[in-house]
């Protein structure tokens, strides 16, 4: 099974530079997720790999052959589309068989492959039906089935779950991951949903404006974001950012509302220059304690219980902060809490460049 190499790819739409000199190496069998806000170039890149878009410059190599100038049908790639792209005038069986028929497979071969795929995806009962008679989740499975029956070198997914409702999406996510393990093929998956990216990927490629912001394992990106954009993109609720002043040779800092936190005893203590920083704190880094020493004093503004956890928002000066609390930590708005901060897990960024400070 070949590996995929994206080599200095550029894509222009007229004057718009959608993909900028982008390179990624995807080893065979890896599950790579391209994620980013809309317009970041992730779909363009995926469609370029499929051959649905022509790249302006650079090369795409699958194994030892360049596929950049091949027609889509010559690339031996399978793709699952956002709208599923099922042919409404064909039965489920014929939909799955479509790619095999296009490649002139024998009827026996087709039957074998369709049976295998339909069993794997648990859609054996629907083979005679037509797409309009299926639910969204079932259509999704058929679309995946159509992709996997062909012994493709590479599987592409273009936001395949975004048309499903939330509950189905969770289930399908798990199945896609299981499928990847079973097939052992290379998957390139595009989504705008950071949870999908986190849960599915071996490696995440986080894109913005046609440039890679960071590439790495999900937890890597989550815990050691290279910059404010990456830190803010991953995680739900999103990371809280506030402007802080580090003083006393890196042992103390002032929060936006003037509260002082000591950095003594943390990894960062003394290793950070005095000055202004953007401090990134995830909501789960804040927890209620009974002590008051070296805590953040918070007047809860809005409470949002989710059942297992409760989100309590409060303000530090002008800065809006979300904390993730135990369900019964707080009972009503207006309560005053003392929150301990897991400072070692928080991030400091240069307020000018947005880059993370490595301590």
């Amino acid at each position, binding site marked *: 099974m070949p590996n995929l190499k994206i080599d200095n790819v550029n894509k222009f739409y007229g004057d718009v530079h959608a993909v900028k000199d982008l390179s990624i190496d995807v080893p065979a069998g890896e599950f790579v997720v391209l994620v980013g806000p809309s317009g970041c170039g992730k779909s363009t890149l995926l*469609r370029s790999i*499929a*051959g*649905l878009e022509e790249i302006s410059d650079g090369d795409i190599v699958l194994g030892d052959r360049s596929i950049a100038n091949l*027609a*889509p*049908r010559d*690339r031996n*790639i*399978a*793709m699952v*589309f*956002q*709208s599923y*792209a099922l*042919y*409404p*005038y064909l039965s489920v069986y014929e939909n799955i068989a*479509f*790619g095999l028929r*296009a*490649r002139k497979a024998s009827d026996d071969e087709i039957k074998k492959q369709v049976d295998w795929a339909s069993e794997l995806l648990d859609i054996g009962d629907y083979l005679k039906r037509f797409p309009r008679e299926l639910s969204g989740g079932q259509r999704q499975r058929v679309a995946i089935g*159509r992709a996997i029956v*062909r012994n493709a070198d590479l599987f*592409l997914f273009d936001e395949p779950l975004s048309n499903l409702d939330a509950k189905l999406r969770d289930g399908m996510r798990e199945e896609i991951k299981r499928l990847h393990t079973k097939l052992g093929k290379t998957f390139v998956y595009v989504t705008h949903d950071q949870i999908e990216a986190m849960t599915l990927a071996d490696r995440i490629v986080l894109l913005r404006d046609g440039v890679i912001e960071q590439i790495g394992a999900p937890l890597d990106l989550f815990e050691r974001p290279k910059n404010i954009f990456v830190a803010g993109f991953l995680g739900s609720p999103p990371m809280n950012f506030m402007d802080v002043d580090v003083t006393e040779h890196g042992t103390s800092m002032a929060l936006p509302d003037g509260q002082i936190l000591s950095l003594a005893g943390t990894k960062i203590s003394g290793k950070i220059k005095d000055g202004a920083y953007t401090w990134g704190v995830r909501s789960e880094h804040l927890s209620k304690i009974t002590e008051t020493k070296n805590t953040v004093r918070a007047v809860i503004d809005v409470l949002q219980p989710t059942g297992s956890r409760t989100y309590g928002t409060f303000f530090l000066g002008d800065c809006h902060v979300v904390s993730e609390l135990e369900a019964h930590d707080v009972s009503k708005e207006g309560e005053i809490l003392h929150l301990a901060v897991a400072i070692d897990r928080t991030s400091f960024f240069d307020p000018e460049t947005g880059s993370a400070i490595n301590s």
Partner: protein
Amino acid sequence: MKQWDQGARLWARVFCAMIVTLFFVFPIYWLGAISFKTAEEIFAYPPVWIPANFNFHNYFVLFRDGEAWSIWNSFVTASISTLFAMFFGTIAAYSLVRYKTGGNHLGIWIISQRMIPPICVVFPVFLLFVAWDIVDTYTGLIVLYTAFNLPYVIWMMRGYIQEIPLELEQSALVDGLTRWAVLWKVVMPMAKSGLFATAVFTFIFAWNDFLFALILSRSDVVTFPVKVTGYFGAQSSLWSKVGALSMLGVLPMIFVVGTMQRFIVRGISMGAVKG
């Protein structure tokens, strides 16, 4: 009280609908009645409203004298030109929609061709056909109807093809089809009902044409509308033949409306809504 009111209004509507329908159908009934009347019945005064019996003599005369052949001529020219116009028009429409060939201008130029009145082009076309020696041949009428219907087909099919999701075609491309195969195996099946509706209209246009046929046919390929007008003499008109041949020309349309009303309605309203 309210219920009675609604019931009365419903009946009033049904009554209106029947009156209106009668107005629209009566002339066709009258035509049909004449086609079944004997000469005495046609020229009776006061007029005979219902012919005494179904008398097929008028039709029999048409077939005996070979004049019903004009229906066959209409059928051949209309159906073959429909096939050609549908084929060339649909692939052209696909090119316009998917590849934006020629930008907006080409599409507008094509539709503008349809606005030119037939009377304005028919003489130069006549000269051209004389030069090619295809006046009074099937070829001539077929070529002309094909050309005349192409803008309509392109315009309508453009609308239908625009509704086909792009991802279906892309999926087929990735699945291993050539562009040509995508057109046949994905686009055509997806546009099936649009193709059908458009073809029905294309056929109707050609079937009903008079002016082109009047000028480009003389004896060999005279179509039925030309033949019908020929029966109106300066003094006496061959009413029985007018009635019978006209009915032969109307029958396919009655059949079309009876079986494909949905397509007709869709075709007519689409033309304006999308146009």
